[in-house]
């Protein structure tokens, strides 16, 4: 994702020779098609490989047939059970049926609750999305303006302040920060509710999106909205403290490289107002790396909220995976792992496409 800035800008086709103006355009369309096709191919390939890895892990765990029959099962019963579960088939057959199940959305059965893992994940998804969304929003509110301000004056006081906050945020284990916030916010100050999950009970109207805060606002149920924000705030701050630093650093460094570039200085020396230069030159040129790190962050948040969810008893995917892990129930763990990784790959490729659509240089150079 090397973003070359400066001279390449001049190669933008807008000032190019008029002849053959439609020929490059059609060539570009084919290029774009090829690019999107290659991205899709890569997406499918990586997803299949990721699923293959979870398949390997699922076969490397203890043979589930032993755990599903009683202690005094005979060899025949075990063999029958294995045949029933398809474990006596050759590996490639097992792999094929695993893949076929995945395509149908079948992630297996939880050994703890005897419910299909896919359904349980679907039920818990909104909680994780709510927490991750709130954390992403919070960290963007700090990281983007903070990063740009810091980058405009490297080594200035804003840069130092924001930089130290980011350093601290990256070093503090977020499960520990969560506990400390619970101690101060709940035990000491009493401003926040006990860490018992989401404020589900507060909402009387019917759920529309599954995301409590948004549901409450849609239903104009302001007391429920306030409650759910109260439940949401501490875990969101905790999670944001971990994901904010990388976004901040990338934004800051991108801004620094733009501010130090010749075209930026040239625009300023031509007397273009600072505000205009910042809007027209700074923002577009830092967008590609920022979008890239955002994609990584979203992918991380889908699976990275594990410990924060555990600390705040948040009923999302992370606490689900940990609870399953506790009772050696591996299908839910692998289901969550698979969902998180495929989401990551998907978001990452979408971010690449967005960058591609936004940056004309990427189309020209192909």
């Amino acid at each position, binding site marked *: 994702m090397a973003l070359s800035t400066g001279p390449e800008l001049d190669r933008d086709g807008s000032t190019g020779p008029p002849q053959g103006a439609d020929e490059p355009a059609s060539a570009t369309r084919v290029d774009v098609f090829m690019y999107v096709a290659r991205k899709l191919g890569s997406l499918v*390939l*990586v997803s299949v*490989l*990721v699923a293959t*890895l*979870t398949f*390997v*892990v699922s076969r*490397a*765990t203890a043979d589930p047939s032993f755990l599903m029959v009683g202690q005094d099962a005979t060899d025949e019963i075990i063999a029958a059970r294995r045949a029933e579960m398809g474990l006596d088939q050759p590996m490639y057959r097992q792999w094929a049926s695993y893949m076929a199940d995945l395509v149908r959305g079948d992630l297996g059965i939880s050994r703890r609750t005897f419910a299909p893992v896919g359904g349980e994940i679907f039920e818990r998804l909104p909680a994780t999305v709510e927490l991750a969304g709130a954390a992403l929003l919070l960290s963007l509110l700090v990281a983007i303006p903070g990063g740009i301000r810091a980058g405009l004056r490297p080594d200035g006081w804003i840069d130092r302040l924001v930089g130290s906050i980011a*350093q*601290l945020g*990256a*070093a*503090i*284990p977020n*499960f*520990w920060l969560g*506990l*400390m916030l*619970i*101690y101060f916010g*709940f*035990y000491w100050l009493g401003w926040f509710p006990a860490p018992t999950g989401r404020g589900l009970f507060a909402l009387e109207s019917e759920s529309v999106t599954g995301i409590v805060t948004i549901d409450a606002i849609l239903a104009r149920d302001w007391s429920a909205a306030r409650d759910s924000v109260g439940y949401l705030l501490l875990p969101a701050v905790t999670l944001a403290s971990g994901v904010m630093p990388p976004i901040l650093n990338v934004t800051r460094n991108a801004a620094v490289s733009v501010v130090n570039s010749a075209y930026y200085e040239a625009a300023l020396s031509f007397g273009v107002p600072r505000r205009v230069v910042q809007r027209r030159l700074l923002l577009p040129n830092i967008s590609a790396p920022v979008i890239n790190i955002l994609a990584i962050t979203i*992918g*991380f948040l*889908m*699976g*990275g909220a*594990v*410990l924060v969810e*555990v*600390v705040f008893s948040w009923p999302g995917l992370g606490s689900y*995976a*940990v609870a399953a*892990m*506790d009772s050696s129930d*591996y299908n839910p*763990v*692998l289901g*969550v*792992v698979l969902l*998180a*990784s495929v989401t*990551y*790959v998907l978001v*990452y490729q979408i971010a690449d496409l967005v960058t591609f659509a936004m940056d004309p240089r990427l189309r020209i150079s192909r």
Partner: protein
Amino acid sequence: MLRLEQLVVLYAGLTGQMTANRADTHPRRTRLARAAVWIRRLPLLPTIMLAITFLVILIGPAIVPHDPLQPNPANVLEAPSRGHWFGTNGFGMDVFSRVIAAARIDVGVAVAGVTVGAVVGSILGATVAYTGGWVDAIVQKAIEVLQSFPLFLFALALFAALGDNTFNLVVVISSISLPWYVRVVRSVISPLREADWVKALQNAGASGPRIVVLELLPNATSQVLGLFALSTALAIQVIAALAFIGLGVQPPFPEWGSMINTGAPFLLQGAWWVSTFPGVAVVLVVISLHSLSRFFDAETRGIG
């Protein structure tokens, strides 16, 4: 070894291709001098902090005021005092002694795991960078797949596959860190594959493994050192996080993450010290490693 280097220098001198990295007639002395410069410019505070950590790992368990594993029903959950600097936990064990004793397992396992990952990953990265072609492409794809797993969930899945014990903790840490080294070393060494001094070595009859390990790999030294500090910091966080949810190191064995976990219920009774101090230890060690890593990064950019 010296003869080959001289040949390269000769060749480079003849073709006028004096590469900054390799074309010195006294490679050993340069390396020492460069190391001396590094040591003199190391950031002060983090270095002292890490030196203390190292000392604590070496002699800590011998000098702690109390036995970290000795429960004492008479003074359970005692607040920090002169007798117990960090207070006592729910079993009356001395928290200060436990925080000190835990450094050995936390930092030890992190360093062990990351070292394995660093050695294997660096050699693999340098090899594929030197070989190129389809091997390179396959390894790159594999790294991409591995890195699309969220770190912590990847560790969970590995524990699910391998079983939960301290040896497997080392395996988990090394498999988490391996891809980073492959990636970084590969990106540093790939552009060197076509360099004249590499061709000179090939013409002089140097074997492939020799070129990769002795000649190519040293070019990535400062990147690898920076990454080592960074990944050790991350490994400490992962180990503590895993122990926090009951995987890896098991209580009552002193470990920062499990100490934070066992102290969590007492937070709501006002006993903040059981969870707070091990967390502070993690933060201090990790912050020192981070600034050390930033120092190596700056060096990399400075030397070019």
